[in-house]
């Protein structure tokens, strides 16, 4: 069951990813990206990382995509056809990607022995959250704080940029 589901999800992710980078309508690209993100969430579900999956859905699929779509609208480009990439760019990018893929696959396939372990354990939100704010062993309080500061900084940055814009307008 989950095997089939996984492969379907995987194919869907790849398909939408390809569509997302090749479509020439920007809004569609955003929507395809949304599907990719949802697919990713699905994989997290399959792995039974429910909290993560939820996070992925709300923050990523819900937050970021909406932000992107809004700003696309803000720059009023919705109906514009995107420019075609020039051939040289396509060729170079494809070669790079193919070589990269080949390289990584080469490494993965040569690395024959992954010692996989099986665990039935399901991490609940509470566990995850406790671990996140714990400063014991396996606690992530410090990175958590750092990330919070980062987010704060990002927020401040975004506000300042917007504000400077206002100032410019006033002038």
């Amino acid at each position, binding site marked *: 069951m989950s095997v089939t589901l996984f492969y379907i999800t995987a194919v869907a992710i790849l398909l939408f990813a390809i569509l997302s980078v090749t479509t020439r309508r920007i809004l569609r690209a955003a929507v395809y990206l949304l599907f*990719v993100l949802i697919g990713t969430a699905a994989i997290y579900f399959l792995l039974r990382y429910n909290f993560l999956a939820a996070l992925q859905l709300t923050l990523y699929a819900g937050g970021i995509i909406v932000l992107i779509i809004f*700003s696309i609208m803000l720059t009023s480009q919705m109906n514009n056809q995107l420019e075609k990439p020039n051939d040289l760019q396509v060729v170079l990018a494809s070669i790079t990607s193919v070589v990269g893929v080949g390289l990584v696959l080469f490494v993965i396939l040569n690395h024959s022995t992954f010692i996989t372990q099986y665990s039935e354990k399901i991490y609940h939100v509470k566990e995850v959250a406790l671990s996140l704010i714990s400063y014991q062993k396996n606690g992530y309080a410090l990175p958590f704080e750092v990330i919070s500061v980062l987010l704060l900084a990002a927020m401040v940055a975004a506000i300042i940029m917007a504000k400077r814009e206002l100032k410019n307008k006033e002038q």
Partner: protein
Amino acid sequence: MIQGVPLQHILLLTTLLFFIGVYGFFTRKNLFTMLMSVELMLNAVAINFVVFNAYLFPENLQGHFFTIFIVSIAAAEAAVAIAIIVNVYRNIRTVNAERINEMKH
């Protein structure tokens, strides 16, 4: 882990996803679509973290948290990036990456 799916297959998926992102980043000219390609790459990496966690060290949560952080950073990054893009657009009325080359030699 997902019973019956070998780790390699998931890695194959993420690899492909990553390089699709790379391809997109190189071929797109619109800053938004470039940003989306970056999101694709970020996702590929995030999946990798989770998968390694789930397959190799299920008792620990490192990969899990890494992904959480990646998601939050991605959010912050997207917010700042979009603020920049919008600003750029307001200043020079374009979001085409090729025309934004003020920093040229």
